[in-house]
């Protein structure tokens, strides 16, 4: 007992037991353990006792039975407690490293957006600008309540600046939303480009239809009562003047133009 500093846990236990005159069997009975388990402890063979929770528990119980301080024995087992139960302080102990700070990520993301959006806008305007470079955007913003709508966009397109001309803002058809019916059915292009757009004009209407490649399929003023079929490769970029008076069917399905009408002109993209 005096050479505690050198003795192993098992040795200390055995010496204490022998000093008190307790037999191994007696100790096993009092600990509710098997003979071999107590023996294993005294041999420092903690592996055979199972997981460390059991080994430590048995040693603790044995030490208490012998009147020893369990903690000093437990710290001696395998050098240190196997499971550190450190309770960190309530304050967040580890300040996040500056580099992984969420604000850094967020600001980078913001910067990226700030750069990407104008670039994308510029690129898009340029790609579309070739078709109508002479669009008098600002002058044409005032809407007109009941215009001779059919002719108004024509004037605008051809570059004759009508002061109150109803010219769409430069927003694309996509901004108005693509027709849900059309998008729902997926975007795979039919190989045989069987897409047919049928239009019935109840009134005079300026109509512009472009196909997937940007080729103009129709760009004309349609007289009242006429109808037209347009064949081509979707998606179609469609502009219809005086849209309230126009019925459109796409591959046999009627399309409701109402959600796309801005004053009198409907702009939208037909996909599929």
């Amino acid at each position, binding site marked *: 007992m005096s050479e505690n500093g050198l003795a192993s846990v098992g040795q200390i236990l055995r010496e204490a037991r022998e000093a008190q005159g307790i037999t191994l069997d007696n100790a096993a009975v009092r600990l509710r353990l098997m003979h071999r388990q107590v023996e294993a402890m005294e041999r420092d063979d903690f592996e055979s006792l*199972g997981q460390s929770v*059991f080994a430590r*528990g048995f040693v603790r*119980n044995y030490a208490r039975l012998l009147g020893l301080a369990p903690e000093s024995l437990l710290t001696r087992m395998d050098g240190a407690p196997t499971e550190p*139960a450190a309770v*960190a302080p309530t304050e*967040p102990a580890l300040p996040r490293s500056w580099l992984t700070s969420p604000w850094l990520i967020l600001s980078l993301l913001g910067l990226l957006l700030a750069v990407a959006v104008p670039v994308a806008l510029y690129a898009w305007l340029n790609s579309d600008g070739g078709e109508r470079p002479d669009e008098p955007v600002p002058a044409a913003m005032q809407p007109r309540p009941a215009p001779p709508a059919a002719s108004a966009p024509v004037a605008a397109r051809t570059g004759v600046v009508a002061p109150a001309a109803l010219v769409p803002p430069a927003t694309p058809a996509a901004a108005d939303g693509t027709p849900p019916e059309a998008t729902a059915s997926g975007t795979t292009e039919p190989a045989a480009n069987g897409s047919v757009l049928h239009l019935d004009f109840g009134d005079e209407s300026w109509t512009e239809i472009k196909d997937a490649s940007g080729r103009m399929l129709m760009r004309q003023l349609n007289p009242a009562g006429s109808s037209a079929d347009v064949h081509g490769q979707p998606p179609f970029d469609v502009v219809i003047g005086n849209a309230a008076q126009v019925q459109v069917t796409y591959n046999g399905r009627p399309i409701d133009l109402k959600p796309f009408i801005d004053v009198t002109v409907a702009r939208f993209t037909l996909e599929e």
Partner: protein
Amino acid sequence: MFKFLTSYFSTDLAIDLGTANTLIYVRDRGIVLDEPSVVSIRTDAAAGGKRTVQAVGAEAKLMLGRTPGNLQAIRPMKDGVIADFTVTEQMLKYFIKKVHDTRMLRPSPRIIICVPCGSTQVERRAIRESAIGAGARQVYLIEEPMAAAIGAGLPVAEATGSMVVDIGGGTTEVGVISLGGVVYANSVRVGGDRMDEAIINYIRRNYGMLIGEATAEQIKKKMGSAFPGAEVLEMEVKGRSLAEGVPRSFNVSSNEILEALTEPLNAIVSAVKQALEQTPPELGADIAEKGMVLTGGGALLRDLDRLLMEETGLPVIVADDPLTCVVRGSGRALEEMDKLASVFTNE
């Protein structure tokens, strides 16, 4: 994208929402919060009876039983489950905020919460919903015996029976676990609180004195024991005399407290015995060899392991740091969330 962002701003948490204490484990950081489950609420008469949270946790616990009329110290958890839904939500919100760095965005972490295995579906749903109300993005529930077993370091995943007895503030959970699943689990609504109550009742009956819960808890911690020991402790206690109506002090001995605790301790012993009866023999043999492991605050009651050892004839081990076993186990489940899917419980 949005989910990714919110996950970046919040850390995953494991919470042991206990009757007595709430502990929070943060992924990669360990246990960061250990506070009493107490909320004190101020009712503002001037503002039309508006209730505001005055203090939460340790600060609120000091107020228990010492509050003036407009202040109320509430323990929102009772018997391991929610007794006051809104207050629990407020408390969780406070704790969740506390463990996050001060940020402008509201944290919305993924949370693992332990539930008593005997809790009903309604009680589980209440816990889940109050966590969601407190800002959780997703809530996983884990049964307390499983969490306690993982936390104590038992070989839960192996083909060997492990028995864990988790004595908490409100409930005692007994579980037999093998191969990552619960073979038998039972929960009795007896725990530290019931022991305090038993002490209060005993002192009222035998001394004609009234003491508060805090005093009873102090007595239990200082000289409560489950088995007659060699030494007899004495302690001076102050309470209100029922006959005279004035505060008086008197002495109680550990033997008396042992007597007072007989009833709750018997309930625990019979729950353990019942578990052993219901355990399949093969697993019972494993348990007989390695013994059962005690966790939870109740395991700190002196000689409780001795009592269970005498009563069952099996080895009984007190886990290292029994108070944090459940939250450490939940924390490990959190760290290995993907691998340990089977330990989570459904509603």
